[in-house]
């Protein structure tokens, strides 16, 4: 699955002209895409020097911040959409940041690697942690410190009184709506505060 397909798929969830906050925005590619193709505005948040530089090079507004310190810079419901794409799994305070996402954004969109994707299950059944294209790290050097599943997220969302507006899996550039917890390497949730 190419990055561009993931980007296009998730970008479709962002209404035209939205004010967007992208938590862990990487090199700013998503915001750049949303600004060019969907008339959006907004900011990225990044901790890495290299990614901050990449954003400035692209002309994407970026604020250098450690997400584990929270989102105190941002007021309640100050963004139409808060994105947390492939970020959740790197955060120590993943649950707090999920609540912060729902506080700052009118809607939140979260995507993360689904640990219950069948090749991962197979690998664990064989007694080894999965090493795949989606999860390319060894267990001892992975930056993914929160490994969870599509179903796990449903439980966490419920616990935090989030209303899930849409949820599906992504695999090979396609949306997976039938048995996504088994059939998709990536989980995508769109939600709002309940």
């Amino acid at each position, binding site marked *: 699955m190419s990055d561009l397909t993931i980007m296009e798929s998730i970008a479709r969830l962002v209404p035209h002209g939205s*004010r967007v906050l992208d938590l862990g925005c990487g090199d700013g590619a998503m915001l750049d895409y949303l600004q060019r193709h969907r008339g959006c505005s907004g*900011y990225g948040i990044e901790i890495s*020097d290299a990614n*901050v*530089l990449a*954003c*400035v*090079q*692209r*002309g994407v*507004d*970026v*604020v*250098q*911040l450690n997400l584990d310190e929270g989102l105190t*810079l*941002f*007021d309640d419901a*100050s963004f139409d959409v808060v994105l947390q794409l492939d970020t959740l799994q790197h955060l120590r305070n993943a649950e707090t940041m999920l609540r912060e996402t729902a506080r700052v954004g009118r809607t939140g969109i979260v995507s993360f690697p689904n640990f219950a994707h069948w090749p991962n299950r197979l690998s664990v059944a064989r007694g080894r942690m999965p090493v795949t294209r989606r999860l390319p790290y060894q267990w001892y050097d992975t930056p993914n410190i929160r490994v969870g599943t599509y179903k796990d997220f449903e439980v966490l969302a419920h616990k935090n009184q989030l209303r899930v507006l849409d949820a599906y899996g992504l695999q090979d550039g396609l949306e997976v709506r039938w048995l996504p917890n088994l059939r998709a390497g990536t989980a995508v949730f769109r939600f709002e505060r309940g």
Partner: protein
Amino acid sequence: MPMIATPQSMHFAEPLPLQSGAVLRDYMLAFETYGTLNADRSNAVLICHALNASHHVAGVYEGQERSEGWWDNMIGPGKPVDTNRFFVIGINNLGSCFGSTGPMHTDPATGRVYGADFPVVTVEDWVNAQARLLDALGIQTLAAVMGGSLGGMQALSWTLQYPERMRHAVVVASAPNLNAENIAFNEVARRAIVTDPDFHGGHFYEHNTVPQRGLRIARMIGHITYLSDDVMNTKFGRQLRRDEDDTAPGYRYSTQDVEFQIESYLRYQGDKFSEYFDANTYLLITRALDYFDPARAYGGNLSQALARASCKFLLVSFTTDWRFSPQRSREIVKALLDNRRRVSYAEIDAPHGHDAFLLDDARYMGVVRSYFESMSKELA
């Protein structure tokens, strides 16, 4: 081949009303420019200086060794602020001692040297004076105003005083105002100067003397606050100062000799400074720092204060800067976010304290370079 800088000056006969209510009847501004103003006059960048710097921002003076401008690593041909693309202007602020009208000049009203009678000038007054010089140069709109520390305060003030005259503000290692600790350091420096017997109430020129002792101490305390604990320990630690022929390994057991390297360093910095800097200028500039507080008129609400700003912003801070800490830059970022202004913010993990804004750091230089590169794409 280094870029050659040529200092210029301009006389202003129209009185400048100051924030204090006083009026500066007649004044000169020293300035330098680098690069070429383009046909539609859209590529001008104003660089604002901090406490002890001047209009000599970049380049060297012909035939003078080691005469590089104070931000020569940042500004020049092919540098992050590229003078092949931008027309860069450095202006010496009023009250300074490097060419613009200041306390060592003659007050046209009395025929006497101003000395301590030079009116108190503020960041806002400086910005008004800078705007007049730009008027005279035929520059209506600036591509950017950029500054570090007190220079960053001027850049921020520009966005509030002349929002329609600029497209970008680059604010480095700065703050929306000084905190109590900062004012306290300034006050220690000022007391050192004012209580020097050679100060003569600020009219020391008439006594053919200079309050060098006060200036030295002011500079020493300033220098401590520009460095970080780490850098001081790495550079000096507890090293003793010893002459080469001195083989004695232990302490001298003297309370007044230079014993540690850090003492020697601070004394050297103080001595050097006291030979070229004006005492009244030091008082004026530290006061301008103390007074700057755009949120004051809004009950301390910086978000309301920055509502007037309309340009895009780049803010940079340094993690070990405790004089203008990252937290202070984040306050500005937050106020801009509240106002939905376009802003990027880089927090550079550099060890050098406040001084980092003048030093080469690849991440810092890279961000500023990229920001100006994307700015230059906006130019025709």
